[in-house]
């Protein structure tokens, strides 16, 4: 990526890439910790995750400032232009990932005050897969590896399948005992949040492919809709 005649240009592009990598690392750890807070019923940790979202938002602003500056001062072309546009898009996906992770943590705070329900066990499995996808996507970004991005992109199907089966399981629990409804509804939203995080990670993978190859990923996005999930709801705590 280096080698510009103007070395300051290289330095600015490098800083942009580093900011994205930092954002990605933070988003990934926010998700890990949110799930940790849920599983360990750790309200302190959950509160830290909620507060930590601010950092990701700040980095997103930094990415925006850097990209505007680069566009204004450098008139980027070709790979540089794609790198800058990609950074802008990736940062907004990562920012959303951060928001969803914070929302998982907020729901963990609520769940920690009521009795445990069983399907909690499936959530960390799903969370682990999504965290792995994020890690793979970030590796693909750092290494400018379109194939790695493509491989991570394909894994989103696993997440969708897990989400669908968790959804069914939660419905069963709610039918068994209406006292489970509050907890299960929160878990359902948590699962949905994690599934959405997977979608944003998939977006990032698509952007990386565009960044490296200059073309979008061919073919349809992998989707495994066993049953139609409920219509997209506002994912705020009711």
């Amino acid at each position, binding site marked *: 990526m*280096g*080698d*510009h*005649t*103007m070395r300051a*240009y290289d330095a600015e592009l490098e800083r942009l890439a580093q900011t994205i990598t930092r954002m990605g690392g933070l988003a990934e750890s926010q998700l890990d910790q949110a799930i940790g807070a849920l599983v360990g019923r750790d309200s302190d940790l959950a509160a830290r995750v909620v507060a930590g979202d601010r950092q990701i938002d700040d980095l997103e602003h930094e990415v925006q400032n850097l990209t505007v500056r680069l566009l204004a001062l450098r*008139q*980027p*072309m*070709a*790979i*540089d*232009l*794609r790198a800058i546009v990609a950074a802008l898009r990736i940062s907004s996906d990562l920012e959303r990932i951060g928001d969803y992770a914070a929302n998982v943590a907020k729901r963990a705070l609520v769940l920690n005050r009521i009795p445990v329900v069983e399907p909690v066990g499936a959530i960390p499995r799903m969370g682990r897969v999504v965290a792995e996808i994020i890690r793979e996507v970030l590796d693909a970004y750092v290494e400018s590896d379109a194939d790695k991005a493509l491989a991570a992109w394909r894994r989103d199907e696993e997440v969708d399948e897990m989400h669908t089966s968790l959804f069914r399981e939660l419905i069963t629990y709610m039918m068994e005992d209406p006292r489970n409804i509050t907890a299960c509804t929160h878990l359902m939203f948590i699962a949905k949040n994690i599934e959405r995080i997977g979608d944003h990670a998939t977006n990032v993978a698509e952007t990386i492919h565009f960044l490296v190859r*200059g*073309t979008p990923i061919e073919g349809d996005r992998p989707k495994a809709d066993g049953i139609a999930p409920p219509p997209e709801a506002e994912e705020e705590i009711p």
Partner: protein
Amino acid sequence: MNVASKPALGQATLDDRRLAKVSARDVDVFYGAKQALKSVSIDIRPNEVTALIGPSGCGKSTFLRCLNRMNDLIESCRVVGSIWLDGEDIYTSGLDPVQLRARVGMVFQKPNPFPKTIYDNVAYGPRIHGLSRSRAELDEIVMTSLEKAGLIDEVKDRLQEQGTGLSGGQQQRLCIARAIAVSPEVILMDEPCSALDPIATAKVEELIDELRQRYTIVIVTHSMQQAARVSQRTGFFHLGELVECGETEQIFTNPRHKLTQGYITGRFG
């Protein structure tokens, strides 16, 4: 003699070269013993702006000057290969270069109006080519040319003033008016804005876009942004070869050749 060189990446040539306005095949140019162009093949499509870019000394201006035989004027210069205008070879012995240059006009880097009045600058070409039968007809040609060049409002009350008294940007548009006064089919522009300020540059670029309706334009430019702004197709030259040619958007967003990528992103090694 013909250095075997790889064809340019992208779509430099059409399947049927007769469909091109200007068609070059295997063009070599030598200045004495030095080869300045190596087997360049490209088709310039009608009513499009084709930009030629590349580092200094890459041969883009040399190629441009082949298209209206301006290289004939250089003693040591020899052109090999074939160049067609509307399907006719422009290097056949019977062809009058002066007539050719009326069909293929040229605008240079530095505005070079004649030391004559604004009116006479534009009227010069039509006069020597005998394009008008009366004073009224000549007036008409001068006024429409100035209008097409976007200069009429600025000079209509001072047609008898010296052309050299205009500002740089106005002089360049005067040169464009002079070029189009003889109703050319193709206009060659060799860095037409490099001596102009940004506003004059914007005016000339706007003009280029309008002129495209009537003329086929080939522009050599060092400004990549300018090539990106005004052209539909772009060819990248390097060390006398046409390395890559394609739609401007593709060249500037996703060039295929490493050299093109290196040049347009400013990391030339």
